[in-house]
């Protein structure tokens, strides 16, 4: 996979973004507005436990480990997508 463009509209078709959203849906509030700019901790109706479960599911889906300090640096969904690309590069 290539690194995503910074454009939010292009991110909507990015395969990692699509996977992130797929794994996010079961954990987010039903009416959550999921978008690249959405802040995971505050905009999606998820508490820290829901976020942890989501990260486990995402790790399984992408066959990738996301260490704690990387999670701590992530704010938006776009940040998470960028972190995933970086981790895939480092792996």
């Amino acid at each position, binding site marked *: 996979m290539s690194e995503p463009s910074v454009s939010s509209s292009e991110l909507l078709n990015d395969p990692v973004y699509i996977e992130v959203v797929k794994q996010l849906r079961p954990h987010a509030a039903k009416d959550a507005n999921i978008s690249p700019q959405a802040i995971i901790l505050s905009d999606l109706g998820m508490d820290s436990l829901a976020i942890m479960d989501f990260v486990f599911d995402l790790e399984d889906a992408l*066959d990738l480990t996301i260490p704690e300090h990387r999670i701590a640096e992530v704010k938006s969904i776009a940040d998470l997508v960028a972190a995933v690309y970086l981790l895939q590069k480092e792996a």
Partner: protein
Amino acid sequence: MAIFDKFKSLSDVHDQLKSVGQSPSSLQFDEIISPTEAVLNGRRTILLGTNNYLGLTFDEASIEKGVEALREQGTGTTGSRIANGSYDGHKALEKELAEFYGMHDAILYSTGYMANLGAIGTLAGRGDYLLIDADSHASIHDACKLSDAEVIRFRHNDSINLAKKLERLADKPGEKLIVIESIYSMLGDTSPLKEMIAVKKKYGASLLIDEAHSLGVMGATGRGLCEQAGVEKDIDFVTGTFSKSVGTIGGFLVSNVPGLDIVRLASRPYMFTASLPPSVVATARQALSRVAGATLERTRLWDNATQLYAGLKNAGFDLGPQVSPIVAIRLQDPGKAVALWNGLLEAGIYTNLALPPATPSGWFLLRSSISAAHTSQQIALAVELCAKIGRELGLIPCPATLGASVEMMNVASPRKVAKQKTKKVSDEDEAAVQA
């Protein structure tokens, strides 16, 4: 003041709890009567949430040893062992701990929390990896913050998930330290040790287990889950605490790994805080000397745990996955969880109310910890009151619905019957608590 603004959500929850009853975080006991009873708000109360597993807090010999040390060596060490030196009791307790566990070395810490901070935060450093269970105690999470190692969580008690994560690290340099707990403190479930050890061996990792809740509780001589599972030789590091079965305060790290002593010079929670006072060391030594032979107490403890677990299960409560000296009722409704906890307190039963995010899967938990010192009558009363209040709150079904309906038709109005039943139970409760 603005500096406290960041705690607003915490403060809101605290205020909300206070507005409907007692505050779980600021109870004040008027008097501690015994390992299982105290006076709270003028009412004699059964203690069912104090982790006093062997009931040793009032052990006469421990008290005598503590008083003796207090008179002979004073009230405190006034500094760390690095700066102020060790007392003979510190060294003796470390030797006795190592002998108790059949390990080469032991290091004392001033609390169990600090033992985890000091052990985990020091053993794994920059370039290493800490693999921790998702349900880890706060002390383990805080130890990770103290360490410069990369921290990776694995799903609770899931050795397959752990293996996947170690597999991804297989080509990376650096030590891999897996951290698990014997009995997890919220639900009382145990770690699947044999599976965890198989993974550790396959990937050449080290394994640290926190036996805080299993010391004195599990194993033929009370050494914990590792002894019970027959896997002690496969464990690299054990941490634990004196604040539960041993009935005092303090923590430790024991290990067979050669060269453990160097940790003393690198472990900030060992170096930069005052060491345990002589009286505490003396009480810990005396109580620890009793743990191996406390077979009767362990039998009583597990009998009591089984009685409480079975009683609550039969009443219809949703509990943790296995019988354990920690029995937790899992609840989804925060209001009813708080009401149940307050109701029990008013009826003379003290338990712990545990709220997310400190709980697994976002449960609201009414957590009990059982003691060998509890009587069967105390446990029976706790079950009865939990069931009564649980039914009133609609948390569990009423088993006598049909019988009650017949009674209502034949005898009296529903309101009168309910009132009579409540009064009868209350009178019995009062008598039993006073007994």
